[in-house]
């Protein structure tokens, strides 16, 4: 194992997959010599040349559409969209074209491509550079959606995403880029569609993903001090969703809290709560609780006030435990 930063792990995955597969290429704004706005594509131009590392104009629809057309012809594009907030700029290409390519053409053409985009707040980047929009994409059949929390997952999932025959939206978290974690020295893959139990526990299941994994683990420590043993499930993928992992945990704990950074209403927590309320309500010993952002755009200077945090999770668990 080696200590590696999240952004570096992503960069390693790109290096390795480009070396492994001649059909992989990189496309996006400032991905060439500058190495990407956050450094994700650093060194790729030097290593693989201009043919495979393509700096583009500021034309997100063209970039993403180009990736689709190239994928239909057998290449494996990895697109970088600088902020996940810009995905709406090229939403038609993602949702009406890429997600539906295999379906619309009856499998004659497919779209094996990856779109990387950093979401989330934490840098005081304001309402148009801080959103968590994953719930939208999880609602769209034809896409796979992944949101890694750790450097190890970021690398292993990105490698899997590039090898996947379906289009994968790879949602990074910009506030995690600078964080570090241990990753294997040797080559490895993390399968898409498998959650990870970050902490085992018996009293309550907390389902989370991306940056909120850390707040959840912090909350779990606090809770442990209070005698509550929380199990923390990091979803890692939203599509496919690892229902089994969630169900198995709730079966054990009989209590469920879901925590995410996105706006709570109509967020991904709703789907998880709904699934349990449909299929496992009888095992629940308490109401489900969701932790998410209030119904507001992300404020610039008041992020601390706005963002859900470990205390919010602790409070939600306390509510569920004392029910």
């Amino acid at each position: 194992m080696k200590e590696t930063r999240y952004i570096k792990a992503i960069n390693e995955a790109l290096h390795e997959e480009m070396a492994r597969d001649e059909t992989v290429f990189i496309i996006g704004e400032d991905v060439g010599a500058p190495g990407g706005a956050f450094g994700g594509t650093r060194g790729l131009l030097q290593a693989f040349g201009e043919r495979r590392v393509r700096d583009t104009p500021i034309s997100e629809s063209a970039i993403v559409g180009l990736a689709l057309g190239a994928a239909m012809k057998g290449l494996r594009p990895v697109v970088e969209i600088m902020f996940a907030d810009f995905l709406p700029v090229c939403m038609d290409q993602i949702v009406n074209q890429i997600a539906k390519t295999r379906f619309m053409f009856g499998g004659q053409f497919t779209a094996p491509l990856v779109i990387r985009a950093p979401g989330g707040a934490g840098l005081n980047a304001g309402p148009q550079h801080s959103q968590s929009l994953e719930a939208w994409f999880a609602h769209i059949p034809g896409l796979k959606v992944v949101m890694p929390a750790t450097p190890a997952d970021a690398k292993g999932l990105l490698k899997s995403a590039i090898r996947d025959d379906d289009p994968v939206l790879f949602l990074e978290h910009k506030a995690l880029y600078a964080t570090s974690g241990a990753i294997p020295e040797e080559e490895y893959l993390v399968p898409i569609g498998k959650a990870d139990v970050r902490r085992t526990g018996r009293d309550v299941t907390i389902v989370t993903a991306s940056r909120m994994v850390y707040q959840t683990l912090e909350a779990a420590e606090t809770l442990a001090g209070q005698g509550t043993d929380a199990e923390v499930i990091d979803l890692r993928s939203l599509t496919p969703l690892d229902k089994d992992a969630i169900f198995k945990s709730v079966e054990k704990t009989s209590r469920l809290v879901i925590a995410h950074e996105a706006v709570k209403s109509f967020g991904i927590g709703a789907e998880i709560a709904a699934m349990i309320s449909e299929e496992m309500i009888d095992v629940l010993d308490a109401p489900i609780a969701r932790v998410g952002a209030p119904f507001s755009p992300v404020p610039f200077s008041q992020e601390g006030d706005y963002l859900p945090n470990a205390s919010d999770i602790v409070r939600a668990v306390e509510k569920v435990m004392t029910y």
Partner: protein
Amino acid sequence: MNKPQKSTPAASSKAAPKPSNTAAAGAIPNDDGFLELHYSMLRVRRVEERLLQVFSEGKIPGFIHVSIGQEAVATGVCSCLTPADTIFTTHRGHGHTLAKGMELKPFMAEIYGRANGACHGNSGSMHVASSEAGVGGANGIVGAGLPISLGSAFASAFKGEDSVTAVFFGDGASNQGTFHESMNLAALWNLPLIFVCENNGWAQFTSQKSYMKIDSIARRAEGYGMPGVTVDGDDVLQVREGMRAAVARARAGNGPTLLECKTYRWFGHYAGDPQKYRPANDLEQTRKVDCIANFEKFLIGSGLADRGQLDAVDAGLRAEIDEAIAHAEAAPAAPRGQFLNDVYA
């Protein structure tokens, strides 16, 4: 199938008619693939006439958009392409798709929504595609094919192949942001891509002067550093000539061209459109220009064909179409839940 006498070899019967320089010498002197052009145009016309008929009989679900009157564009453009080349088309894509060489049976079965359609009946008229024939798909979102076509052209260059891509779009579509982004990127990267603007003067129920101030869309090419050419889209030879030059440029690695083909929309926006918005005389004027009748006159006048020969082609086409319709109508609907198999790999 009853192709013109000088048909292409069996192996490429699915392919687009080839440009003359690659075609075998024919029986008729000076035949620069003329009979194949005629065949292709007439095939599109007869298919769409038949589609209008079966649609009006309620046999086709959803809605369809025909390109009758615009056959010279589809044919002239696709006559310069090989099966290794790719096209992307629009909601009004039957003509392009057939001219590119798609087989009629999977085409028809798709429009009928049958399980044996090219897209398993998932899509219908608006999304017909054929990987075999190099048809990257019709598209229901105006302007959305343009960015996708970039990728196809990019892949040719990336792989070092000399194949090219052509993307069809309407005059209306030329006001979508995707047009702009795609033109700029294609010019910048010298992509082997031909932007074929099929300017039929209408976007749905609105005529061109209501949505743009300029009348020639080719004028926009200059703002990207790309050549822009306007041809008479009702003259298949002019279209072919314009396209040949553009394809040669693209194959030689010299980048994209915007080829504007001016033509007329003979029918409504969709089959069944009552066209109340359309001035009566506009329709009349429009129908005066018939690319097929004109071309037949030319063929007969130059002694390249006689009426009987052309009628035989027509009869052959009708038989082929009957067969494809029968095939589609006899085909079973998709089995329950089948569509779910096409969502993921």
